[in-house]
């Protein structure tokens, strides 16, 4: 064998074939995250049914005061939601993680429950509670005071903000809690020694230290609120408060103007980038070193006389976000007409009978939601696990970019992604419109960030030396992953799957633009039913959705312990 012939052969043998797999996975990631965004941007410049590029779509999209107003309205709403989320979540997070407030575990559970309840069901609950004439609160108010005007009106900007915050404050809570768990008590001790009380210390020392986490939570909540579709459909239309999502929907009216919708969505992308830039700017000049690393001990703050007022605050939030909407919904689900209240002649199982047995698509939609979400969650988990592995073990150059791509869908408003998905997947050559695949792809993409964050955290805990042992003993990388990494991550993977499954099962913002008659998911069916305003049937179907979700979460609790959804992921 001459050396000239041997060199390529050896190079051939040395070539790491697994590299192809990594590159392939990276390509998949680029395809599902970058492609829809590129298609969105391109679509915004396309000529409808024609060739070439134009700026006209932007002129149409922003050419009417009403359209611009919708954008302004949305930003006002988002700011309101973010502010209210902070008011709800930050004291609650502090009380739950650092103080001796009573019933902390229970309050945490309620926060989780508030997240599990999809925002459009919260909206149904609040219509029942705060409908101007027949809402429970207003009837009680009129009965007690003899007033002629309602106390609260759900069909208003305030209504929109409260309902959204009820669901979204979860994010701020989780972010804040995780930051608080890293702040050591030493600095607080210093403040105490210098004479500051518990509350003063909290405001002067603890709060500023966790400020970056709160800010991150605020940004996430703000962006999430822009993308919600169900709540505006139920509340903003009667409230006569047009927002971006309802406006985008109008661009899909005949003739379908995807290009204009894309152009209308682009500034939202700009806002996202702007917010992330602002975040950098705000955090750049200060040091938060105490937050990083494993500091000293963390002791419980004794609230003393504040114990019960603090609990009162927490209980009020639990009441507003979970118990009140839930109770009225269950009542409605068993009612002939919800406004007639609790009485025997109003009691019926008819709504459940209709939903479970009469309505042909309802059962199908339950099945669709669960299977699509399960498969999408699985895809997101597996893909993100591989990507996290690539990033963590630095298997590819520029792996940081891959990590960024995984996280990107978290901050891009879902409705923007939805338009991108439609532009990328619906028309030929892919022509996926009306298929299950288009929904699964969209769901998997939206689920990627949570899956990735969860897996990356899990992987960081596994030192490469165990895999190296496998490789020294002659096993390949895949063997190492299959026999070492995966078993070690098993619990974490199950936790991540549940964490991804729950919101995916309830997803509406992207589903609404991608669903076909045979691929309707529960959320879309709920929206279709809501057109007729039959809150009783909606509540019945919503209860089914909630029961399914609770069962899945309960299984998750059993396997991975009950705190897995409340940790920062």
């Amino acid at each position: 064998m001459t050396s000239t012939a041997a060199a390529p052969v050896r190079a051939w043998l040395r070539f790491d074939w697994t590299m192809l797999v990594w590159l392939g996975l990276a390509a998949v990631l680029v395809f599902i995250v970058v492609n829809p965004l590129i298609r969105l941007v391109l679509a915004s410049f396309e000529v409808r049914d024609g060739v070439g590029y134009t700026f006209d779509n932007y002129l149409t999209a922003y050419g009417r005061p009403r359209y611009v107003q919708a954008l302004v309205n949305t930003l006002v709403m988002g700011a309101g939601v973010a502010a209210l989320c902070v008011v709800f979540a930050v004291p609650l997070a502090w009380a739950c993680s650092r103080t001796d407030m009573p019933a902390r575990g229970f309050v945490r559970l309620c926060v989780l429950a508030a997240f599990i309840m999809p925002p459009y069901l919260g909206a149904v609950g609040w219509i029942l509670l705060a409908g101007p004439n027949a809402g429970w609160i207003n009837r009680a108010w009129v009965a007690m005071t003899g007033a002629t005007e309602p106390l609260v009106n759900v069909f208003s900007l305030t209504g929109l903000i409260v309902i959204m915050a009820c669901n979204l404050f979860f994010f701020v809570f989780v972010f804040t809690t995780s930051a608080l768990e890293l702040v050591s008590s030493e600095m607080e001790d210093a403040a105490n020694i210098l004479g500051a009380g518990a509350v003063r210390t909290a405001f002067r020392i603890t709060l500023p230290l966790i400020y970056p986490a709160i800010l991150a939570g605020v940004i996430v909540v703000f962006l999430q609120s822009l993308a919600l579709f169900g709540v505006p459909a139920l509340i903003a239309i009667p409230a006569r408060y047009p927002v971006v999502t309802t406006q985008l929907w109008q661009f899909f009216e005949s003739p379908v103007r995807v290009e204009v919708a894309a152009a209308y969505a682009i500034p939202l992308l700009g806002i996202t980038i702007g917010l992330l830039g602002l975040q950098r700017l705000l955090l750049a000049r200060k040091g938060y070193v105490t937050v990083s690393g494993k500091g000293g001990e963390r002791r419980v703050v004794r609230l003393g006389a504040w114990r019960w007022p603090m609990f009162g605050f927490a209980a009020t939030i639990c009441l507003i976000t979970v118990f009140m909407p839930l109770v009225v919904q269950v009542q409605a689900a068993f009612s002939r007409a919800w406004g007639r209240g609790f009485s025997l002649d109003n009691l019926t199982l008819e709504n459940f009978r209709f939903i479970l047995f009469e309505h042909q698509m309802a059962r199908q939609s339950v099945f669709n939601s669960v299977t699509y979400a399960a498969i999408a969650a699985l895809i997101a988990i597996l893909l993100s696990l591989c990507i996290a592995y690539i990033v963590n073990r630095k298997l590819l150059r520029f792996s940081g970019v891959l990590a960024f791509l995984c996280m990107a869908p978290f901050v891009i408003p879902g409705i923007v992604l939805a338009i991108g998905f439609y532009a990328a997947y619906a028309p030929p050559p892919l022509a996926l419109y009306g298929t299950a695949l288009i929904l699964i792809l969209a769901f998997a993409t939206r689920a990627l960030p949570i899956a990735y964050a969860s897996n990356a955290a899990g992987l960081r805990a596994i030192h490469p030396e165990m895999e190296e042992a496998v490789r020294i003993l002659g096993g390949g990388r895949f063997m190492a992953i299959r026999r070492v990494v995966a078993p070690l991550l098993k619990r974490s993977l199950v936790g991540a799957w549940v964490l991804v499954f729950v919101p995916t099962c309830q997803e509406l913002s992207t589903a609404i633009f991608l669903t076909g008659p045979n691929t309707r998911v529960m959320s879309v069916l709920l929206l279709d039913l809501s057109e007729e305003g039959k809150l009783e049937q909606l509540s019945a179907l919503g209860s089914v959705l909630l029961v399914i979700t609770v069962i899945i979460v309960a299984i998750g609790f059993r396997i991975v312990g009950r705190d897995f959804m409340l940790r920062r992921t």
Partner: protein
Amino acid sequence: MRAPKGRTLPIALAMLAATLSPAAAQLSADAEKALHEAAKKEGQLTWYTAHYSAETAEKMGKAFMARYPGVKVNVVRTTAQVAYQRLSQELRAGSLQVDVFGSTDIGHYLELKTKGLLEKFTPANAATTLESVRGIDADGMYHVSSLGMVGITYNTAKVKAADAPKNWPDLLDPKWKSQVSVGHPGFSGYVGIWVLTMTKMYGWSFFEKLEKGKPQIGRSILDTQTMLKAGERLVAAGPITSAIEAAAKGDPLGWVYPTDGTVVIIAPQAIVKGAKNPAAAKLFMEWALSEDASRTMVEDYQMSLHANVPGRGGTPLKDIKQLILKPDEILKGVSDVKERWRDTFGN
């Protein structure tokens, strides 16, 4: 056909009568069987409908499937504009999902027809329907499969019959401030046509005044009824037949045929060109115009399309003052009033 001698004349007369009467033209048993067999091979069809409430739509689907085993109909009930939006989205994506399209906005059919997007098919059963609804399209591309009425509806538990509004401008009375419920023309076909009719009769100022009365604006016209039932609102521009049905079931619903006229909705149905299940779609169209379909509709107090199937409850159509817009008026007018509505009501 063999007949004993001496009885030829009566039979000939009967046959003559049969050819003259609509029943003669109905789908023959053989043709029905052949169509059923062809439809069975496709196995299913998808039906978008804005004609009925979710309950009635499901019931119609079940009745069809009971009559034609082996052919499944996927019932998708939404408001007319949403159904049209989904159809448009499918056409845009080049992936048609719907087979039979049932909107309450007749303008949709004119538009689809101009674009060559409807399948030309005249069901044999079309000849059995009431003369007044027959042959609405000269080219036989769409056929009336449902009738409806928009009138004034109210909650009888809270409003006495004597106090209920008598005509449309009565809804603008300040005494109904924050008590009126309406649907949204951007969603509901019924509401679009109602808004157009009111605009034609009273000008847009009707809605400017309505706006001041803070009406509750839902999406579907059926939402108004839900609002009345719940006691959230007292009076509405709502669907009459559904109010009759609800009242029959014991809900506190009343209805008024306004003295200035009840808006009559003529809702067609058509097969979309390029439908994936053409035979099943044809079978469904035949069925939708059959007496069987009328009987199913009448069970839920919908209006009958057949003289042989009497309606239930309410005043017969011929005895009320009707407001009917021409199809091309609807085509031209609805998108315009949708825009004006959004400008006035901001939603």
